[in-house]
């Protein structure tokens, strides 16, 4: 876009500086998790651990049920991801390929609600869950994140690009609408579905305020909740907390590293919406 040498130089300097800003804290937490308690409380602080130790991880797993938190988080994230992949692809398919009364208004309703954050309507959700006596259950934790408005929008975009002739040909061969959905639409929109899956998984894993209000006993804590509560009580040392933070970040980084192309494509679409 701009090829002037001075601008290119400025670009390198600015981008390398920003890289330091975004990456240093990540490396810092990783390094801290492997430091001994004595080294963490050293002044001036050391950057990389002199003497890498697993002690923080061992202490965390010994003294807290952190693996249980990770298990809970995984269960909730997988449940929510599966639900969102099903609801997004099915609703996206119907909105993309069928004509029916109220199609426009219903779709607008879903699209408009995408922007409204859970925080703004969580009180009635809580009362609902309370009334059916489901507080502190996995069902309650997954329940409000079974639909993703953006997912419906995104899958509609993806499925709209599947040619109608393909579906019509299958119908002539006697295929039912469900068969078309399961065999044709799903396999042709796999890549988009992956992107939505990644978004759903990271969103569910990172969810904080809903577990905070719904969960009341330690055995139902998620990693995020456990990590936040460690701040308030339990630990006076930072080492095990850093270890917990690393455990909570690593699955996200793995997912991101494996599927970054899908993720970037998904973000591109969300930007195109604007």
């Amino acid at each position, binding site marked *: 876009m701009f090829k002037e040498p001075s601008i290119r130089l400025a670009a390198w300097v600015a981008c390398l500086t920003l890289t330091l800003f975004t990456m240093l804290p990540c490396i810092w937490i990783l390094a801290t998790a492997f430091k001994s308690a004595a080294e963490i409380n050293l002044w001036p602080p050391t950057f990389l651990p002199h003497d890498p130790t697993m002690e923080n991880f061992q202490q965390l797993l010994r003294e807290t049920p952190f693996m249980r938190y990770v298990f809970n988080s995984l269960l909730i994230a997988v449940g929510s991801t599966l639900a969102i992949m099903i609801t997004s692809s099915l609703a996206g398919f119907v909105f993309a390929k069928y004509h029916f009364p109220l199609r426009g208004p219903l779709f607008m309703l879903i699209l408009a609600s995408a922007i409204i954050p859970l925080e703004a309507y969580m009180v009635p959700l809580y009362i609902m869950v309370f009334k059916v006596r489901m507080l502190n259950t996995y069902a309650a934790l997954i329940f409000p994140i079974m639909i993703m408005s953006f997912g419906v929008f995104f899958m509609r975009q993806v499925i709209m690009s599947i040619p109608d002739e393909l579906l019509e040909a299958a119908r002539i061969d006697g295929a039912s609408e469900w068969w078309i959905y399961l065999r044709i639409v799903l396999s042709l929109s796999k890549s988009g579905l992956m992107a939505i899956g990644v978004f759903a998984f990271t969103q569910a894993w990172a969810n904080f305020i809903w577990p905070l209000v719904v969960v009341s006993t330690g055995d139902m804590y998620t990693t995020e909740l456990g990590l*936040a509560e460690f701040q308030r009580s339990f630990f006076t040392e930072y080492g095990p907390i850093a270890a917990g933070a690393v455990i909570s970040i690593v699955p996200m980084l793995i997912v991101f590293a494996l599927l970054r192309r899908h993720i970037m494509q998904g973000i591109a679409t969300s930007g195109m919406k604007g």
Partner: protein
Amino acid sequence: MSGAPPQLASPLPSAPVARWRRAWTGMRRNHIGFVLCALGPIMALFVLIRIYPIVETVRLSFYNYNITQRRNPFVGFANYIRLFDDDPFRTALLNTIGYTALTVVVTLLLALAIAILLRSIERAAPVFELLFYVPMVIPWVPAAVIWKWIYDPAYGALNYMLSGLGIPKLGWLQEPHLILYAIVMVSVWKLVGYFVVIYGVGLRSIPEELLEAADLDGATAWKKLRYVVLPLLRPIILFTVITCTIICFNVFAPVYVLTASSQGAPAYDFKVVVGEIYQNGFVFYHMGYAGSQCVVVLLFVMSLLVVQFLAFREK
């Protein structure tokens, strides 16, 4: 909702049977049975977990609702009147607005500048975009945990770096006037990469010929930016301003973690709107009152939605 049958009953007496039959074959052709089976349950769930709670939030805000009590009387606008006298809420609102304004401006200006600069080093751009995006992958809680240690008054890396410049140790999370900037910095760190990617998409969609044409006319880099690039980016800029504003206005997890007193260091109690909703609704169980605070958030978000809608309508 979606289960509602189409309006078939015609007020006109002209051959109703024929109209019914036509409508029926039309529905058959459009696979209305499949649409109902597939979309019906999803829309029902959608109403249950989105539409109903939103409407119910507004209704609750007119009641003195307490989940532990049997009688929850209607109180009209009393909750809203109380909002005006509620000092913690006023502080929270002002804090949230200040935090949001600062974070949105810094994040988006930085992201836009970087995204534009990245276009001049096209080959390295994807790598940089990935490196900038990494904090976005980190959930808010561990992100705040990381920064909490960086901000630590006694052992923190930030104070160590500043001590190199001769600045004495500061209590980033303890001083009432510093904690705002501390939380803004975490947020900029976390969000900037996402917006660099979004702007990157917008910038890549600008046809190169336009800029070459400007080059032929002898336009300087600044003029190209001012008269070609920025005007074409307008819709994306509007989208990012609204997205970023909504993300920031609902800030809670980082504040919850960063203001928790721990490791022997107390922290200043920086109040935000969602924190007040949490306190009132789920600590004190004043759910009607919390509902009125939720309505404030809803109104704010809806007004942004209207702004976006009107702006795109223009075109």
